[in-house]
């Protein structure tokens, strides 16, 4: 009984440490916290912490860097149970995500990728998605959603070109875009099915797009 209670308490500490992005604490005390816990309980705890972090980001309780640290802490937590990230996540519908050709700012895209993973999507994140790389990745991974990001307005033509070809060759794949260079109207103008204003709304936007699919 005591052991059970202690394990629950200790997993609670792990959850808090992940939410707070406290990697040092996880490194120092993590092995002790998870010693008597089943692997799945640890993974559930880590996912719960990230769910809280996502909620915190959504409601502006957590800032962007705090969320980034929580992501790092989550990965540190996975090392405790020697689990790759892909196995720890719920493997739901597949999303292909990337910045468009020429775009060098991938911070927002990486946060959206993490948020989508926390929300149960299987996320393929190869980095820069040129038109050809996007089409190849669709063939390989069969995503139901392609998420494209652009911060610089100079990348909008590349985004539009990619969207045109994805729609032409894979009409069943939905396309969501986001980034500082866009708004909902511009997203519609260049042919995207949907638009996410920020990382916090990305999950809702993706779910809305895939509703019924």
């Amino acid at each position, binding site marked *: 009984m005591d052991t059970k209670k202690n394990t629950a308490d200790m997993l609670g500490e792990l959850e808090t440490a992940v939410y707070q992005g406290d990697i040092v604490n996880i490194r120092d005390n993590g092995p002790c916290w998870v010693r008597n816990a089943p692997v799945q309980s640890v993974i559930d705890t880590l996912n719960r912490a990230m769910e809280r972090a996502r909620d915190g980001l959504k409601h502006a309780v957590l*800032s962007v*860097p705090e969320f980034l640290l929580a992501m790092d802490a989550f990965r540190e937590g996975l090392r405790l149970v020697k689990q790759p990230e892909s196995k720890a996540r719920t493997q739901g519908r597949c999303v292909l995500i990337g910045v468009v050709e*020429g775009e060098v700012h991938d911070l927002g895209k990486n946060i959206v990728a993490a948020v989508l993973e926390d929300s149960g999507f299987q996320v393929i994140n190869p980095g820069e998605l040129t038109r050809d790389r996007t089409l190849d990745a669709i063939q390989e991974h069969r995503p139901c959603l392609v998420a494209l990001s652009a911060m*610089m307005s*100079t990348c909008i033509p590349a985004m539009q070109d990619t969207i045109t070809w994805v729609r032409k060759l894979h009409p069943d794949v939905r396309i969501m875009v986001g980034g500082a*260079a866009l708004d909902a*109207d511009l997203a519609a103008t260049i042919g995207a099915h949907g638009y996410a204003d920020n990382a916090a709304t990305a999950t809702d936007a993706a779910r809305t797009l895939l509703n019924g699919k």
Partner: protein
Amino acid sequence: MNLNRIIKPLLRGTVPPPREVPEPLLELAASAIGLRAKVMPLTSIERAFAALFHKQPDHVPVTPLVCSAARQIKNIAFKDLSLSGDMAAEVFYAGYEFIGGDMVVLMLDLSVEAADFGQTMIFPDNSTAHPDYANPVIKNVEDYERLKPIDLKQAPRMQEFLKLCRIMVRRVGLRGLVGGFVFGPLGVLGMMRGAENLLKDCLLYPTEVRKACETITGVLIEYAEAQCETGVPAIAIDTLYASASGIPKKVWEAIEGPFARQISLAIKRKKLMVGVHNCGHNPYADVQLKWIEPEVLSIAHLPDDCRTDHDLKKRYGHVTIIGHVPTPLLIHGSPQQVMDECRRQIDILGKDGGYILAPGCEYPPNIPLTNAFAMIEAAKRFG
């Protein structure tokens, strides 16, 4: 009042440092301009001056912030624009002459300062210069303290920018205001570390980040002072990280706030006006005003404590607001849609001066210039 510093620029046909003139005299002049605006058209300088001193101009001043987009007029490459003050002046002046507007803000690109600190840059053919993020100057936390100040005289990008300022001040003369530009120390660091790492470092290693900011700020102060000497009457400080896109408000206050203040004070000592530019989401206007005490606030999005433009005018109307026509609208909107949005903003923000119509950030570099003309037209029609 140093009369010499007022008369000399005027004799050269350029704008003197505005704060060299005592405040009561400035107020008097602004009131006189405000009265004149009721009966006759103002010049660009008068219009901007009236707006800056919260008098009603004949119509709101406008600057479409056509910076690198003006390359299209002269067919000048992005790389030449970045690396040559002469070429950059050709571009900015062409934008000013061809499109118009009451002021020119010399937003070249955000890589100028970081490049001179040794950051390797990439110069794409069809886009603005940016750092090679695979090869950052700040590779680890220890590198923050290793960062060394640089000699402004030996800093080629900043020297070319100073040349740009000098040429534009001379060529625009008394027809309009020319504003200088300094990227804040955290912005420069972001170029040398990568945004993701810098954001995390601000929380994990604030002392080290602060140390690097201190090193950079010393150079930026010298750079800002050198811009003042070129004859620009105002300089904008870009504090991008003071927004929800950046770091928490308190962290910004603890790290960049004091350094941004030092830069602002250096500009003010030269009797110039100070602006803040921030194109992040939900900028922290309150703390930026607290630390920098600018006369002008240029934003792309509503501050974190404002829900509407009415809130913005009510809360921050005591400074002159520049903005904030959305840049995506400039890309996809028709001229009529752009003019409609300009009219909406003018109606709310333009009352009793204190407003300059502009995009929230630089006019998108690769789109047609039609919507820049739409903004100029909207200011004349609805302002």
